């Protein structure tokens, strides 16, 4: 059974992620009013928020250690929070600052925190093969760490996912694939792109266990993940979990969601896994005061990260030419600056 400590920790991770997303949304929209220009404001570019997905990240990552690997897709923040990614440096990265996780080179879809073995990628399902690789390394080195690949339900039709299932299965690798089913692949509902409503059945073809958690329920995710991760830790091979979540904020900020009915949005919002977990906490005897404390400490942490990030320096233009290689080759024009910018660039 899940302990009260686990419940509280998951709640804290979920509330932190939700408050973080709400604050990012505010910051992102600054400078984009009244006319929405995606390249304006303190956070430019695409922003894919994960509000509504929190149960998945928290329920799974509650079982993981820093040396376990997680790969996430383009909607990564709730998973990163639950995995213990450095929130300040992640925020600085999203604001494109020099002290961000990737010195401002990656942005919100390309967050890397090697300290906790977290990475994400903007191409869907493409985090699956690297997770298999982390599992392979664990097996070869005979450690007990595991790898978890998160992906959306829209990604389960990709070759990278299906090939990864097979490779992990045939090599008996300690990998767990977690499909977050938020019902929508941008504008495409699940039943338009696959005939198999239960994505966990993809596992059947590879002779691995597949489980679907059919409600936005952190505790149910936690229980299903415990079994799958335990199986990986015991070196009994990979598993597939599909977890029902919901999408509260559009595919990306600026998505008009004209394709989605108001009823669908309202129904999704009623499935809030944070409310559900709060009820679970109360049922386990956690009082209002404790819950309030968890919420306010989450808020403080989020505010602190955002304030810190906004104070960080922007990268220098010339920094763009660094980090292409770990060992930069010498004597070739691998990173020459633009002709017009030779005064500022070309420092390597």
């Amino acid at each position, binding site marked *: 059974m899940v302990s009260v400590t686990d419940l509280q920790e998951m709640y804290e991770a979920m509330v932190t992620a939700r408050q973080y997303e709400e604050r990012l949304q505010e910051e992102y929209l600054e400078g984009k009013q009244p006319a929405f220009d995606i390249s304006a404001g303190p956070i430019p570019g695409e922003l894919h928020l994960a509000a509504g997905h929190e149960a998945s990240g928290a329920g799974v990552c509650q079982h993981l250690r820093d040396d376990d690997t997680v790969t996430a897709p383009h909607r990564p923040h709730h998973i990163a929070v639950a995995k213990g990614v450095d929130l300040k440096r992640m925020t600085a990265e999203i604001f494109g600052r020099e002290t961000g996780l990737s010195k401002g*080179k990656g942005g919100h879809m390309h967050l890397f925190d090697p300290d906790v073995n977290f990475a994400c990628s903007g191409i869907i399902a493409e985090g699956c093969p690297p997770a298999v690789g982390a599992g392979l390394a664990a097996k070869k080195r005979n450690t007990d760490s595991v790898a978890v690949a998160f992906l959306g339900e829209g990604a389960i039709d990709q070759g990278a996912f299906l090939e990864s299932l097979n490779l992990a299965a045939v090599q008996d690798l300690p990998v767990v694939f977690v499909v977050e089913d938020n019902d929508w692949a941008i504008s495409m509902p699940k039943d338009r792109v696959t005939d198999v409503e239960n994505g966990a059945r993809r596992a059947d073809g590879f002779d691995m266990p597949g489980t679907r958690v059919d409600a936005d329920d952190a505790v149910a995710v936690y229980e299903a993940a415990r079994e799958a991760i335990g199986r990986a830790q015991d070196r009994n091979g990979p598993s597939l979990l599909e977890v029902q979540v919901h999408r509260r904020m559009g595919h990306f900020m600026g998505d008009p969601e004209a394709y989605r009915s108001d009823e669908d949005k309202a129904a999704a919002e009623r499935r809030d896994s944070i409310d559900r977990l709060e009820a679970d906490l109360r049922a386990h005897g956690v009082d209002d005061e404790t819950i309030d404390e968890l919420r306010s400490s989450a808020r403080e942490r989020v505010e602190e990260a955002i304030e810190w990030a906004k104070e960080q320096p922007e990268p220098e233009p010339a920094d*763009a030419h660094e980090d292409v290689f770990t060992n930069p080759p010498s004597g070739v024009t691998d990173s020459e600056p633009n002709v017009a910018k030779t005064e500022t660039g070309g420092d390597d």
Partner: protein
Amino acid sequence: MAQQEKDPAEGGQTDRSLTMSRAMVEAIAHEMREDDDVFYMGEDVADYGGIFDSTEGLLEEFGRDRIMDVPISETAYIGAAVGAAQAGMRPIAELMFVDFFGVGMDQIYNQMAKNTYMSGGAVSVPMVLTAAVGGTYNDAAQHSQTLYGTFAHLPGMKVVVPSTAYDAKGLMHNAIRDDDPVVYLFHKRLMGIGWLPAPDGPKTPVPEDEYTIPFGSADVKREGSDVTVVTLGLHVHRALEAADELADDGIDAEVVDLRTLVPLDTETVRDSVAKTGRLVVVDEDYRSFGVTGEIVARVAEAEDGLAALEAVERVAVPDVPLPYARPMENEVIPDAEDITDAVRAAHGDE
């Protein structure tokens, strides 16, 4: 076939201006009305109308059978377009971002591009692969590339890059009618999408009637006598902006819009350089092994080409992935000032 049709560029008077996306959609709709074999497959192309408005309104007219939302399975649906084309249909398959090409690249370059040749001409693949390209809005390394040179390098694909609504429509008509695979790369910044404002320039008058623009016909977007600027896509507009500024200083730049990379209109480029003696090539793709080097080589290879060439400058993305943060993205993607500086350098007044 379509190559022989005449370009009504001069005869296309109209007061009606369209965004580049509307012009593209108009050509697609026309071809779909004319030919039941034309259909469109992609992610979010039906109800959404294309993330970059590339299919806006087409679902309402043509229905789901012909405007097909497909699973996120690029290998499968791009390959299916190849197969349907070989079966005699004229599919259009959309890759949402060109950066996603890697997911389905075998179908693109080992099937689509090579089947005609490998069959000794027995098979043709009359399909269009559309894809959104380009940066300038901080979408980082996996969503900002143009990859012009990548597709043009691999034999067997025609490669189209419109810079205006007028060109976009005529080139799209030609792309759909062409009997070969055509990669049609539209720049996000030029489409006229509400959330990604376009510069002045791509929205142009567009005739309501159909017309084709032959592949391999570069367009001199601005005539000039001092320096030739060869470019494509978004950078046509940045080059025109630079040319306006240079004109104030008495430097008269000619801006050549390539419009297609395969086939490449070498003659127009060479003629221009023969006139100006100075060449600046501007590209939003990576610098090495790409469009800039190819254009310089084509000019140098001409008879007396090297002798006529007084100065050469290349302006392109240095060989780094596209960074996210604004100062770094601005550093690597050439802007009008970079082009101005390069033209001045070529002109000899640094």
